[in-house]
């Protein structure tokens, strides 16, 4: 009973929110539109279950997720050291700012064209696009984090006898972790936008391809299955990201001091 109460206080709001979303969707689809072009949730879930059972949905989902993960991890691993260097050394910032300030205004969706020309329609072009969409957000957040370190934190370490390298590894780096994590979280959200756009245009599988096929063959319910899956997948990965921050890096959590 007490567990139920706790679960309710933690997840009750979410459950109600999601429920109301589906109720509104149902009402809108059945009474407001009343067309096959806007199927109600029941139809979509039935179709989703079917696609899940025959493995089609899972195959598309796995394809998209794999691309996102590969590009996201590579983009973060590249972006963090670049951001740290830009935040720590003024000449490096001056040198690299033209790149970051120029390239971040070219949306990854626009880069699909060259990605396909350079890397073909295989995995390489998708991973390239996810790296592209990840790296600038991670760089900018990391560099901002380094610049936001209170000067007194550095001064205190120097007066306590820390060397320059120790100041970097024991003060600058841990103080920047919350900013890095925030950058990665934002990059993760952007990765979803990019992967769908890329798969819409050129791919043999993935949730974006599923959307495109649905449009091609007028399988409206299949389009909706893909859309709902994207929403849920984004929601779940973001929650997992937050959860792992709180669990494994609680003291570095962006919310805490």
């Amino acid at each position: 009973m007490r567990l139920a109460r706790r679960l309710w206080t933690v997840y009750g709001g979410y459950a109600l929110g999601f429920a109301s979303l589906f109720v509104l969707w149902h009402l809108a689809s059945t009474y407001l539109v009343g067309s096959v072009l806007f199927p109600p949730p029941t139809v979509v879930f039935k179709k989703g279950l079917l696609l899940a059972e025959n493995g089609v949905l899972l195959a598309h989902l796995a394809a998209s997720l794999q691309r996102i993960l590969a590009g996201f991890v590579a983009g973060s691993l590249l972006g963090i050291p670049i951001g740290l260097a830009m935040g720590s050394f003024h000449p490096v910032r001056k040198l690299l700012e033209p790149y970051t300030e120029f390239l971040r205004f070219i949306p990854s969706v626009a880069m699909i064209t060259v990605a396909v020309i350079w890397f073909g329609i295989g995995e390489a072009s998708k991973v390239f696009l996810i790296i592209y969409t990840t790296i600038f957000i991670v760089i900018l957040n990391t560099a901002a984090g380094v610049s936001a370190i209170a000067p007194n934190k550095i001064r205190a370490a120097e007066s306590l006898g820390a060397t320059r390298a120790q100041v970097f590894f024991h003060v600058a780096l841990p103080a920047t972790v919350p900013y890095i994590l925030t950058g990665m979280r934002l990059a993760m959200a952007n990765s979803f936008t990019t992967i769908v756009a890329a798969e819409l245009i050129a791919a043999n599988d993935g949730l974006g391809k599923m959307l495109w096929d649905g449009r091609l063959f007028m399988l409206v319910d299949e389009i909706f299955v893909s859309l709902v899956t994207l929403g849920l997948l984004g929601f779940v990965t973001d929650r997992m990201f937050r959860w792992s921050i709180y669990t494994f890096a609680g003291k570095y959590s962006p919310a805490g001091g």
Partner: protein
Amino acid sequence: MPLVSFRDVQKIYRSLQGADYPALEHFSLDIEVGEFFCLLGPSGCGKTTVLKMLAGFEAPTAGAILMEGRPISGASRDRGVVFQGDDSLYGWLTAVENVEFGLRMRHVPKAERRERAMRYLELVGLRGQEQKYPAELSGGMKQRIQIARVLANEPTMLLMDEPFAALDAQTRTLMQTELAAIWQATRTTVLFITHDIDEAVTLGRRIGVMRAGPRSQVKGVVEVALDGARSRTDDTFLRYYKQVYEMIRDEVAKSLSRTD
């Protein structure tokens, strides 16, 4: 030989518009080994500049700052600093980890540094709080961590930049009493910056009163011949308070009427 000696020090700050502001000019001051020196002055008189230069965070424009006869070059662990705010604490480390930071940087073995950190946490009255993070502690407790962190590092001298200014009146009074007791026990040389006459008379062995800026200097030094615990209601205490007050009154008026 004094432990610290400022000789004819000048510090000029340049604003973004390119205008020069001479904060200090012909500033001279000696601090003796083992004394508790309070530097008192109206706001904006450059007293924090004095501390920053001695700490090695900023270099003087002209003149010399010597410690044990050698010129200061950069920050060093023989001058431990207690900052006014709590932004110098490491939020990702617990109280005891903050205190042993300096020892860890010097690769003191874990058991030894933990033991020493705990001893200093006890000295500042933080026993039982060692596993808490700074965000979980009150303003007064955070200043205690800063003091313990500096003491555990065993510096030659302590530089304190209005360390209690952000605390409420009750906590401030308590912290002053405790700091006086800690100083009695350790006899570390202290340079204590404050704008509070009461605080200066409570803590200082000598009180240096500064002129209002720009081109600030030490106007005069008052020796406080009070020993042990000082009482604010004591006649002698009030006499010193008055003496210092007379010296600083005009400077405060000058600093308020400044038009820049």
